[in-house]
């Protein structure tokens, strides 16, 4: 057995990844083979730089300032979980995933099935060799792999708490929803210091299956989150994702969805907030492999301080995907002159009988709205907060109910300066 932990001097890697690789114990455990492949990948592929088109606006300096080692989990107290919620920690704070008494409908995937299924969805959505995925493969010691049958009553709450310690916290999840299965998942990622949470989630939805997937990411100005989500949907399935992220030095969220034969419904709602020097980046990709698929995508961002928000929404409608109905709207609130918003739809439409609406707006807090509130005795700071809450409300309301104890709104707004509500700023709208 070769220890992949030996530093391998390959010109195409980068010093941070090399240092990380050399800090790792030899590949072992249930994911030994996966770790080997991930580590081999990292020796040949450097951390993305801004020279790569998909990372053009996304500086990885925050990651390079994080200690290149595995994070030692230090269990932190979590808020009590709500009723009807089945919580699982994925940060290594609790051991022995296999010993859980699973709720009805959830079964851990046995070894041989796991071997067949793991990575398949990543391959289908084109992310297998993607750097954040390789990083996760190289480091993840375990995977939560579940088969889902029928309707699962409790919300499955998957928590990773990185705490304040240094290093990389890998989280990997595989969900196989059988025909007509229904599941609600809330993933919570928290950090309180200079560390990197690396998340890879794969989900396959059988015919008629329904997955509601909430992501609540509450970070720290020195922390990074790389969250890659690969979903394959079979016909008549529903995938609803609601993702919110705030407080991270760097957060990159990458949902990639393939409707294998079309005829499925996808909904992606996102909200990200940045301030200070923070950067939040959502790169989504939805591909319709057949006709009659739908996509409803709404992305919102709040940028304050010298923060930067990036949204890139790819929608691929090949010839086979006739009668696709897709809409994408990116709404951005710019609260400071130093903040920056980059938002871009990326539609590749080959089929001719499709509806694809898209639009983007960038604006300040609206002066007429502020004045209206002020004219009712509400101070300008409180008025600005109310408007910010209003901007977030629609997305937050769509999170699973299990999100409430994590106080998503308070967390988002505590991250926000109330901005400089001077002037209405520029407003532009495109192609809706």
């Amino acid at each position, binding site marked *: 057995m070769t220890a992949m932990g030996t530093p391998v001097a390959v010109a195409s890697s980068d010093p941070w990844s090399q240092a990380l690789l050399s800090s790792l114990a030899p590949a072992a455990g249930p994911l030994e083979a996966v770790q080997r492949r991930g580590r081999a990948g990292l020796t040949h592929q450097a951390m993305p730089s801004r020279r790569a088109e998909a990372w053009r606006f996304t500086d990885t300096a925050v990651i390079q300032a994080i200690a290149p080692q595995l994070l030692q989990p230090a269990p932190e107290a979590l808020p009590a979980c709500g009723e009807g919620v089945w919580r699982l920690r994925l940060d290594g704070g609790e051991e022995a995933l296999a010993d859980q008494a699973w709720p009805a409908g959830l079964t851990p995937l046995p070894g041989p099935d796991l071997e067949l299924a793991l990575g398949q969805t990543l391959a289908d959505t084109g992310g297998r060799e993607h750097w954040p995925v390789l990083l996760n493969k190289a480091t993840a010691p375990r995977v939560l792999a579940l088969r889902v049958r029928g309707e699962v009553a409790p919300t499955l709450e998957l928590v990773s708490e990185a705490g304040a310690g240094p290093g990389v916290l890998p989280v990997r999840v595989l969900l196989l929803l059988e025909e007509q299965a229904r599941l609600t998942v809330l993933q919570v990622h928290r950090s309180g210091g200079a560390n990197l949470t690396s998340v890879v989630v794969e989900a396959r939805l059988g015919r008629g299956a329904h997955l509601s997937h909430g992501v609540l990411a509450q970070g720290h100005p020195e922390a990074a989150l790389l969250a890659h989500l690969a979903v394959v949907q079979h016909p008549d399935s529903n995938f609803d994702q609601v993702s919110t992220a705030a407080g991270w030095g760097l957060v990159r969220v990458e949902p990639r969805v393939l409707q294998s034969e079309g005829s499925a419904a996808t909904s992606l709602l996102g909200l990200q907030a940045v301030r200070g020097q923070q950067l939040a980046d959502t790169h989504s990709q939805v591909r319709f492999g057949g006709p009659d698929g739908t996509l409803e995508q709404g992305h919102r961002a709040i940028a304050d301080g010298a923060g930067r928000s990036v949204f890139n929404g790819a929608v691929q409608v090949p010839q086979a995907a006739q009668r696709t109905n897709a809409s994408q709207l990116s709404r951005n609130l710019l609260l400071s002159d130093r903040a920056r918003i980059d938002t871009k739809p990326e539609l590749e439409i080959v089929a001719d009988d499709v509806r694809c609406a898209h639009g983007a707006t960038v604006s300040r807090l609206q*002066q*007429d*709205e502020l*004045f*209206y*509130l*002020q*004219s*009712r*005795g*509400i*101070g*300008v700071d*409180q*008025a600005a907060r*109310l*408007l910010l*809450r*209003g*901007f*977030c*409300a*629609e997305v937050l309301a769509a999170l699973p109910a299990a999100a409430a104890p994590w106080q998503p709104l308070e967390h988002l707004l505590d991250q926000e300066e109330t901005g400089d509500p001077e002037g209405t700023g520029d407003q532009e709208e495109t192609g809706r």
Partner: protein
Amino acid sequence: MIRSDAPILLEIRDLHARVEDQPILRGVNLTLRAGEIHAVMGRNGSGKSTLSKVLAGHPAYTVTSGSVLYRGADLLALEPEQRARIGLFLGFQYPVEIPGVSNLEFLRVATNARRQEQGLEELDTFAFDDLVQERLRVVQMDPAFLERSVNQGFSGGEKKRNEILQMALLEPLVAILDETDSGLDIDALRIVAGGVNQLAGPDTSTLLITHYQRLLDAIVPDFVHVMAAGRILRTGGKDLALELEERGYDWVDAELAQPLAGAEVG
């Protein structure tokens, strides 16, 4: 109700204001005493709406000279929210829609801001709920509108009712209603006017800004002022409004063509 010994609530003296580089108000003089209802009429562009916005403190308008005293104190030195807290209310011609902000919460925050200024206890959600249910009756408004976002998806009439509901909750001393009648059908007009009449009392004053006599059939003013070219050209009783309805505004043009009186500045 005119009482010459009633306290002066609002005193506007030779007020000039502009928006960007465009002078709009050119020497407005107007005094509102407690118990009085005033109507300001005039054509589009005469400066009526500007007057209301300047009084409420809209940031797009700059006062270039003149003064406004609210119960003897300098109103123009105050931020818009402070003006509201001490009892000045502007009913908007076009109430603003605010997506995502619940109407009920908006009303509660506003009411408590005013109550705090009055030295009254803030109302918690339960106490406020009781109050708002009672005040809804003033404008015969469906409680379902409390659960919606502020003014979002409201019809024109519902928006105006929501304005008067805010007035009923804030209990202002001076209420300025900017074209509250615009966009209302007869029934809605009757309800809104009924609300204003209920809220007008011996200690408050109301300034109605309107184009049309029909609002003044429902809310009978003590004084009618005709505004043109940024100042008040003529003041009279309620008959002046009837006269305007009959004669139109052409005589205003004739009067404007006359050499200006000595009092006019700038």
